[in-house]
């Protein structure tokens, strides 16, 4: 028998795994940094190289980048993005959370057997499909009911609502399921009705952070969605006058124009600035989620 302490591990035997996996993990950091760097450097060029005023970009309402002089008021895009996001969240959140409560508290059998698989499937449906259905079903319907072209903010909101509903519902189901059983039973045993239990214990207390996170993740998805919105919103760059007017969003602006502008031009750079805004909003959504989950734990 050799002495227990006289042999040493070869570096290869133990070290190789650690090195390989560390390299893979660092790729995640590198990619993130690269994305932030690339998008920021291009997006800021609008202001530093092309001399566009940041204030004009953020609150200006005139978008005519090819004019002389070019006008770079991106507010119509920004406003469009926020309106469709908030609008779809307002519709999808109550429906999604209500459905989640139905699936877990009122009829778990139907919920688990029928609704859960369908909702999981719908989370995975490509967004172009949602856009296409919006285009071929919703637009004619809106045109016939309200007149006009049908392409509108409202169409964008409705398509996004259907698109984020499965996301919000399935995340809310997880949040509601995490409420300890004995908490519910205690409430029912004290004579509270099912509705009082659901409202006071589940919605307001235990799962509130989880439900808020579900809504925010849904909003993040809506805010960043490009094609489904672009296909139904009408792509008109003006401050919308009503829910039925056509409009534009940051994502649809980029989608439509990125391929048709000359790289390096002020117009092209302004599209990158819109991309940078999307990136910043993503970071804000993440910060919000982290803040909520921290408060939820405290």
């Amino acid at each position, binding site marked *: *028998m*050799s*002495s*227990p*302490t*006289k*042999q*040493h*591990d070869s570096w290869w035997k133990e070290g190789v795994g650690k090195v390989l996996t560390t390299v893979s993990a660092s790729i995640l950091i590198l990619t993130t940094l690269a994305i932030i760097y690339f998008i920021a450097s291009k997006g800021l060029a609008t202001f530093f190289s092309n001399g566009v005023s940041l204030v004009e970009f953020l609150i200006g309402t005139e978008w005519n980048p090819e004019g002389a002089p070019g006008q770079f008021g991106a507010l119509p895009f920004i406003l469009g993005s926020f309106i469709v996001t908030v609008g779809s969240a307002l519709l999808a959140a109550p429906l999604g959370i209500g459905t989640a409560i139905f699936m877990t508290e009122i009829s778990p059998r139907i919920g688990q057997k029928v609704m859960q698989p369908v909702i999981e499937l719908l989370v995975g449906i490509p967004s172009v499909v949602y856009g296409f259905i919006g285009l071929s079903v919703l637009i004619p319907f809106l045109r016939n009911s309200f007149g006009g072209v049908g392409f509108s903010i409202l169409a964008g909101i409705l398509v996004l609502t259907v698109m984020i509903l499965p996301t919000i519902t399935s995340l809310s189901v997880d949040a509601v399921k995490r409420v300890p059983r004995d908490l519910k039973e205690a409430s029912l045993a004290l004579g509270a009705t099912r509705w009082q239990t659901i409202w006071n214990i589940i919605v307001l207390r235990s799962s509130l952070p989880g439900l808020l996170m579900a809504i925010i993740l849904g909003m993040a998805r809506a805010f960043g969605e490009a094609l489904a919105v672009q296909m139904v919103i009408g792509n008109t760059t003006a401050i919308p006058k009503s829910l039925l007017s056509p409009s534009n969003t940051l994502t649809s602006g980029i989608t439509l124009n990125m391929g048709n502008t000359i790289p390096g031009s002020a117009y092209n750079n302004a599209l990158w600035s819109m991309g940078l805004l999307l990136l910043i909003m993503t970071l804000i959504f993440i910060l919000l989620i982290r803040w909520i989950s921290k408060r939820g734990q405290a």
Partner: protein
Amino acid sequence: MVSNEYALKTNDLNVFYGEKHAVKQLSIDFPSHSVTALIGPSGCGKSTYLRSLNRMNDLIEGAKVTGEIWFDGENVNHSAAHVRLLRKRIGMVFQKPNPFYKSIYENIAYGPRFHGVTNRKELNEIVESSLRKAALWDEVKDRLHHSALALSGGQQQRLCIARTLSLNPEILLLDEPASALDPISTSKIEELIQQLKANYTIIIVTHNMQQAARISDQTAFFLMGELIELNDTNQIFTKPTRKETEDYITGRFG
């Protein structure tokens, strides 16, 4: 220097989990080819102590072990020691049977193969002899390539013992090996320990005092991380010298 009568010994061994001082100044000698039982109420540090002997506490974040562990003429409780070779020579069996999610054959062959045995015939021999030593061969010889998870709890635990024996260790550390088993399986394991004593030095943690009395040669009684009494098993169970020991074995606490 350690005399050859002792397979293993510790000098002033301490284990800390963060702030918690879990094992205090323990010095025990383990004579070769004998069974030592470590007994005491739960949380007394007996399992923690056992897990220090093959350096399994290295895996626990924040655990610190100080003092000396003498094995084969050297103190192995320092960072330069060859921990893997140490663990090969000091085998361990856990409280809950933990066979790998592999076939019975692969459960046994896994260790030797890693440590350099590649010859198929040699592996077959190791698998058979290990299973025979663990008194499992007759029960499983027809289904060596079936999943180990299909075995009963008692069989799984004997498989785990066989898996440890496959590396031909000198010392066996058993951490409450029968606590999750039914009485029949337990008696099989106890019988097995008696047979294995001839070739291995065995250290067993148990919360079952009858078990300690039945199978061990010497017994160490732990309380709150300290060694209260260490003596021949007969002595401990008939004429304990310390009041705490007597209270414990007569069931007044614990």
